[in-house]
């Protein structure tokens, strides 16, 4: 922990953050979310100072700050905003900021996939449902929001618990990540080049590293694979052999390799998926299929309002002096579906 950031400052930041989040939560009285946001930002700043104090020479660059600040701020608003729609939109913001972080982390494929799947597909579904399931807008906007949206449940306990958890997690992360060492065996960076010989040849040819066209990639005698051995430290090499029957071989050091002779992120992910985790794809596919089926079945299910809820709804509506118009039948409980409804 000490190597990463000043613990005292960090814990103080956690405490202040808890205070801020709790304050920012929607509540019955006027929600001081602004104050909460300020306090939350202060906490974030404190955390940064904590980082700076511990390691002044290793400050991350501002991209990281910007993206993470946006992501966390949006996340805060996402969980504190009383209106579901805005929450969802703030969530989109979080996602976008996160993709920024992804990009910093050289995970382009995932960044764009995230935008497409999350921001594009999932969140749109959310928005649809939010609109579908919210009570219609009226003159008094505040009234349209349900009690459950306007008042948070046990904000203090939750914030404290949450931030204790954050503190604990962070402490563990700090301890764990400082002990974590790269395992070169697991680093796969360009390992898959030997399964794409055409591309390697094309790159080599383009870089004019082949003496003539009869040269091709050499095959390793021991394992029968192309002899391409990239190494993390750049000391690797690949072997080319002439195909004209002389059996001549030539070694090309890694530092001489053309710039394009490396796996793009997308390729890496693809190899990882197909080569290392084929089962995961299958499982994911099944999960998606099942969820699709489930969603279809669930949404086709006809439900009847249960009696108590109905009474409450009526009472609610009556109190809003709208009971007479709507009558007993709610908008989703059409007459005649009672028999088929789920008990």
């Amino acid at each position: 922990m000490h190597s990463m950031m000043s613990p005292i400052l960090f814990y103080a930041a956690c405490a202040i953050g808890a205070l801020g989040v709790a304050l920012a939560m929607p509540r019955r009285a006027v929600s001081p979310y602004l104050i909460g946001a300020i306090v939350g930002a202060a906490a974030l700043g404190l955390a940064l100072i904590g980082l700076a104090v511990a390691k002044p020479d290793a400050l991350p660059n501002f991209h990281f700050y910007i993206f993470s600040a946006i992501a966390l701020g949006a996340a805060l608003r996402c969980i504190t905003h009383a209106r579901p729609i805005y929450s969802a939109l703030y969530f989109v913001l979080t996602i976008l900021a996160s993709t920024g972080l992804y990009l910093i982390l050289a995970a382009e494929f995932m960044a764009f996939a995230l935008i497409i799947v999350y921001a594009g597909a999932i969140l749109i579904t959310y928005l649809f449902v939010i609109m579908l399931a919210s009570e219609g807008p009226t003159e008094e906007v505040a009234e349209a929001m349900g009690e459950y949206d306007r008042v948070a449940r046990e904000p203090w306990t939750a914030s404290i618990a949450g931030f204790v958890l954050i503190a604990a997690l962070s402490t563990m992360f700090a301890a764990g990540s400082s002990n974590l060492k790269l395992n070169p065996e697991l680093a796969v960076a360009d390992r898959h080049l030997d399964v794409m010989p055409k591309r390697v040849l094309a790159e080599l040819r383009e870089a004019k590293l082949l003496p003539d066209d009869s040269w091709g990639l050499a095959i390793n005698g021991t394992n029968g694979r192309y002899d391409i051995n990239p190494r993390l430290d750049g000391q690797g090499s690949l072997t080319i052999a002439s195909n004209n029957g002389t059996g001549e071989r030539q070694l090309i050091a890694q530092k001489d390799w053309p710039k394009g002779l490396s796996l793009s992120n997308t390729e890496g992910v693809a190899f990882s998926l197909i080569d290392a985790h084929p089962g995961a794809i299958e499982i994911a596919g099944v999960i998606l299929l099942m969820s699709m089926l489930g969603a279809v079945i669930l949404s086709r299910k006809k439900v009847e309002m249960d009696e108590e809820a109905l009474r409450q709804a009526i009472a609610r509506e009556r109190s809003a002096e709208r009971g007479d118009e709507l009558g007993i039948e709610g908008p989703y409980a059409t007459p005649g579906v009672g028999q088929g409804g789920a008990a």
Partner: protein
Amino acid sequence: MLHLLELLGSSALATTLASTDAALASAPAAGGGVIAAPMWASLIVALPLLGAVLSTLMAVMGVRTKLPALMTVGLLAASFVTTLALFLQLQGGPAAGLKLYDWISLSWGSGAGQTFTASFGFDFDHLTLLWMLFVTGLSAIIALYASEYMSHDVGPGYCRFFFAFNLFVFSMACLVMGDNLLLLFLGWEGVGLCSYLLIGYFYRKPAAVAAAKKAFIVNRIGDLGLLLGILSTFAVFGTIEYTKIFAIIESGVLPNGQKLAEHWANWVIPALLTCGAFGKSAQLFFYVWLPDAMEGPTPVSALIHAATMVTAGVFLIARMYPLFVSDPHLIVLSVVAWAGAITAIWAATIEMAIFDIKRVMGYSTISQLGFMFAGLGILSPVGASFHTFTHAFFKATLFLGVGAVMHGFGGQLDLRRLSGVAWMRGFGLVGIAMLIGSINLSGVPFTAGYFSKDIILADAFALPHGQIWGSTAVAWILLITAGMTAYYTFRTYFRVYAGPKEFVPGDDAELLELGRHPKGVSIEEWHKQHGHGHGHGHSHGHGHGHDHGHGHDHGHGADKTATQRVDFDPTTEEFDPHPPGAAMKIAIAVAMVLAIAAASLYFIGPKGGWVAGMIAQSSAALPESVATHAGGDHAHGTFFGFDPHKVMYYVSAIVGFIGILIAAVLHGPRGWQGLFVGSRTQAEKSRADAFVTLFGPITTAARNKWYVDEIYDWTIRTPLLVLGHILHFADKLGVDGLVNLAGQIPRGLGRAFQTGQRGVLNGYALSMAAGIAVLAMIALLAST
């Protein structure tokens, strides 16, 4: 297989027979002076037991005749004959023993006192024979009496009665003849059980049930003392067999080398045993059960609660007399003497006030038992034993007479509602019997009671000062009591048996049935008309079976509630006294004759009579060291300067006559001719009633038995019951409450955590998050 037989004791008899000789052969070495009794002596015990078994069988087979009674009479008579034969064989000789088998046998080592043996064996010495003679004899007579008295209950009830009766005799035999204290205890509790069963014979009467319960419980209190006494005896002497104990006492040195005279055992054990004796013999504060025990059928009262069982206490002290007199200070005997005297006069005061003639007899028994205890206490075992013996007969006679009256007058027992019974048809013998019983009880000269009481009184006066603390005072109390006894005895006699022929029938439905008939129709015609199975008088002997030809069958217990009898209505019905039948008359006559004849025993044998001779040959005889002071010609105490043994003949006679005189003045006939019929009117009876007003509340208190029952109720029973309730609630609330509280702890914890389980999703999430947070923090803190 043989082993098993041995294990199960099937071959007990065989092994017993084989081992008896060995046991007896070894016995003299240990206890001294015990010879083997003939095997047939065990018949004394076996016959009543057989009777009990047969009675049970008869009940099972549904016998509805008088067979059980006849069987009982026969077996008990045989038992008596056996006793007599044994007596004749052993008379004058040393004690004999008979060991049947080891009842309880336990050993934890080979040393002295490390083997506990209570055998089913018997000692026959002169003390036990004396007791057994009147026990078996009287029980046979009273069984005969009961055969008729109980005839209204022929059937299972009858069998039940005679089962308990036989079992009683068996238990009494074990009590008296057992060769160790534990067998005595078996008999002791056994007679208690029979007493319980017989007092509660009329089990539908709540009073009878309560009385039975009271008798058993009060006895149990005493029994605890006895049991502890037995245990102490074993602890101190290392054995509970009489012969061995007596041998140790005789040697004067306990097994631990200490001298008995200097050891606490010489008064602690007697004190504990005395506790038991008081309970069984209704002395001091234990007396309360005996008057209530009169709820039982009269034959039971006669046999158990007058003649035999209640004298078990006397027997116990007499049996263990060597131990009692081994205390140089005679502390316990002083207590016994005073207890006896106080009980005697205490009971006498009550008797003078109450009206229930059966209870009068009951209190009289207590009073006379007081005499016996006082006799034991003032070092006169002879007097006590003789009085026990004579009392058994004359009190049995009195009870049988009272029973006849009760039987004949519909259960009437109030002496204010009966008069001139002796002159009524069929009751002549009863009158004579009552008179003879009364003069015995009052101590009229030359009756058995006179002699036996004299011995006690004389010995009491003759005792030197200091040997028994306050023996002279005891003597005076007894003398006064003798006068009171005479008074209350003849009060009853004059009121009930003499005087004009008048009566009001009682309210006992069973007995009323014997003599009721509509007005204007004589009872013979009435019975003839209705084909009533009622036997009447002597002609039918014992023919009271009502079990045929009549609408309501009340022959046996189970049906009694089903038949509601019409209450006796004096305006339309009349009641003829129902005189005793042949069986009852024979029994009364025999008892009466024996009561008279008992007097002759005083003149048989050596000085002090036959009983004195018997006692002298038994273990109850006073040891020389004590005897030199007490009794005999060496009397130190005097009665106004005279030798009490001589002058007491006159003094007690005079006192007795004074008592009778007062009774005659207050209750009796006016003038000499008043002894005959019709000489006194109903109105004149109130002479005594006017007299009692002088005493005011004292009479009322005495009439209410000095409120002792109430005092017990408020000081012992109610507090205990309240304590029981308190404990019950404490148990329920306190002890069980604690348990439930322990059970509530998990439940409470569950409740506490239940608030987190509201079914609200967020709640679960929150608790999960908090839990993870806390766990993580713990892990962190633990790792750093």
